[in-house]
């Protein structure tokens, strides 16, 4: 500690370690149905991951030569990243548009986004045949600046850092690091703005990856607008996930982990999120129709793949959009929750379509890719591990409850400072503004 270690600090350091040790102990019940199901899967998944790294991908992955990207990319990465879209959308609403009403969910959304990136994008490592070279595009063992994937890789990395910065004040509050919190909180807006920019680009970038798979993807899915479609669908995918996680979180977590005001405001927020989803999905639907007409592909609708396309479009896009709308109009959260789940399924299917279902759709069934049980177990293990980590953090860090009093005060001071600066008058007058309650002698001049 920069050379000025005092006895008091030593003392607090000891306290700090004791605190950490107590926090590392499990909280809550251990034998829950969820734990009983997920723990063996995670263990098995861990073993299989080891197996994959020792034996090579082929030992675990099924039929990989026709389908370079199976469910690890097609589901974990593509869907995981789309589902993490809630983070940038909520951050945009709360920090850029200053929708204070939604402040209670922003940390949850950003934490979910951050973990999704760490785990799901981390799953890329599994799918990289030569995974030890993963640092190459970053350290410049040749920069493939002409590659969409190069951009996506860099954006992943930078966005993870941005999200870490966004969520870091919560961790500083947990650990009681006041000065660190102040510094980290001052970076939030910048991180949010950079984060939204990066999200825009890599959400659409994931779509752009498929631009060169021109004839390999069924014409109903292949369009030059894939990047745009991926970006817009990540908005409602992310919001649907926020609805889902919020609904689950506010139910399953202990009362003392959740702020009562947050819980009460949730139903109201839920309706608003449903409204945003309904509108975005409706616009997305119109865009899809526009693209269908633009590509002159309507004749293909009356084929098996066309039926699949229509199922996706009607059943998993228009129907949930309608359910969202219904829930919003009637003020009823139930249809919104159902719609959120349908939307998530729709996005999962949409992303899987691009790399698996509509990819080389013309191959006979026997040559098509069907994930092996090992791929599925590893995938589930990754998802469950993420849920465990999410739970671990929410049980300790102020995510769903209000920050400690000192952090709230720090925030207010900060705001006053900013406000004061904007006023230009205040520093001169030595005044603290409006609610500051400090009075200074004006007559000293």
């Amino acid at each position, binding site marked *: 500690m920069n050379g000025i270690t005092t006895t008091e600090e030593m003392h607090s350091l000891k306290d700090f370690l004791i605190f950490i040790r107590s926090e590392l102990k499990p909280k809550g019940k251990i034998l829950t149905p969820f734990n009983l199901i997920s723990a063996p899967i995670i263990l098995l998944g861990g073993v299989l991951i080891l197996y994959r790294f020792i034996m090579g991908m082929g030992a675990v992955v099924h039929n990989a030569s026709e389908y370079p990207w199976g469910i690890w990319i097609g589901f974990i990465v593509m869907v995981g990243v789309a589902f993490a879209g809630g983070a940038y959308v909520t951050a945009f609403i709360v920090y850029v548009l200053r929708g204070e009403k939604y402040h209670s969910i922003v940390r949850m959304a950003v934490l979910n986004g951050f973990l999704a990136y760490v785990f799901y994008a981390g799953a890329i490592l599994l799918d990289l045949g*030569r995974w030890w070279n993963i640092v190459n595009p970053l350290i410049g063992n040749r920069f493939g600046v002409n590659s969409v994937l190069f951009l996506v890789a860099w954006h992943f990395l930078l966005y993870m850092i941005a999200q870490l910065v966004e969520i870091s004040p919560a961790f500083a509050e947990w650990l009681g690091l006041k000065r660190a919190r102040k510094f980290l909180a001052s970076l939030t807006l910048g991180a949010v703005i950079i984060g939204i920019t990066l999200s825009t680009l890599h959400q659409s970038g994931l779509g752009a990856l498929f631009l060169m798979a021109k004839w390999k993807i069924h014409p109903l899915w292949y369009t030059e607008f894939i990047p745009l479609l991926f970006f817009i669908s990540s908005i409602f995918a992310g919001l649907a996930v926020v609805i889902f996680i919020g609904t689950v979180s506010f139910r399953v977590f202990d009362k003392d982990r959740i702020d009562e005001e947050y819980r009460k405001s949730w139903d109201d927020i839920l309706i608003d999120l449903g409204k945003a989803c309904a509108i975005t999905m409706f616009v997305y639907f119109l865009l899809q129709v526009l693209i269908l007409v633009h590509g002159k592909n309507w004749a293909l609708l009356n084929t098996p793949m066309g039926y699949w396309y229509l199922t996706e479009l009607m059943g998993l896009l228009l129907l949930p959009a309608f359910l969202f709308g219904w829930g919003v109009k009637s003020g009823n959260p139930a249809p919104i929750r159902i719609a959120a789940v349908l939307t998530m399924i729709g996005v999962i299917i949409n992303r899987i379509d691009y790399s698996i279902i509509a990819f080389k759709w013309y191959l006979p069934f026997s040559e098509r890719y069907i994930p092996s049980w090992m791929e599925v177990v590893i995938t589930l293990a990754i998802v469950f591990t993420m849920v465990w980590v999410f739970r671990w953090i929410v049980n300790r860090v102020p995510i769903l409850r209000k920050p400690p009093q000192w952090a709230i005060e720090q925030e207010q001071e900060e705001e006053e400072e900013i406000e004061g600066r904007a006023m230009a008058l205040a520093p001169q007058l030595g005044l603290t503004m409006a609610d500051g309650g400090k009075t200074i002698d004006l007559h000293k001049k």
Partner: protein
Amino acid sequence: MGIDRRTFLKGLGAGIAGIAPGGSLLPGRVEAAEAPGNKEFMGVIVDTTRCVGCRSCELACAEAHNLPIPDISDTSVFEKNRPTSETQWEVVNRYQTEKGEIFAKRQCMHCNQPGCVSACPVNAMEKRKEGPVTWDTNCMGCRYCMISCPFDVPKFEHNSATPKLQKCNLCWERLKQGEKPACVEACPAEALTFGTRRELIEEANTRIYKKPNEYISHIFGEHEVGGTGYLYLSSVPFEQIGFRSDLGTTAYPEYTKGFLYSVPVVLLLWPAFLSGVSAITKRKDNVRRKEGGKV
């Protein structure tokens, strides 16, 4: 082009390597002994009217690249259409056409503007000035090149713990020695002709012109996906010998051009726009707070 990309990338690499830990540990580039001057693409004509399906080229290819040696006396392999694989950089297939059986070998087409090269995030795939598209070991194994190849050629050794990407490299190592590709040298029927792409197109046109009854008037690869190093001549439409007719003449990297060109623009405009929005909402927020705070 005004900017030499390699020189620039080296500079970029050196710059970042200074920041990134371990940057100095980068394996050195496997530099080809590049002769000066504006090199032209080399290529190969595959004249399917001459191919007899002896598979000598397969054998020569396997020998030249330490791949499993195929049994070329076994004609049962023709029963089904074989794609290239991680153990076979090139394969000869037999097609039933309106003019009877026709043999055609398949391998990397060595596009002028390869999709795989523009897809590679580490430039492990590289289009050499001499024409070959080669693979290097700094590959991460993301297999984006497999997604992006219009001919579905690159194959990955999934079953290895240290997999490599396998595809024809137009015998790049032989080319550097001034030799012809192994397959061309091995062909007993003169179905394969090696030369600069410019010469080959002339040669192919000459053959079509001289024997209009033996060839259809189309050189496959002259314009397909922006032009390829391998050029095919045939007596039947190319769909019948296993080529797609919907590849178009647009080079594959062009499909991502719109997106990639918009990235720097978005990176510049988005933060500025968002900062503006944020500043406006902050102003409004302050006003609201004052009115609500103390009246």
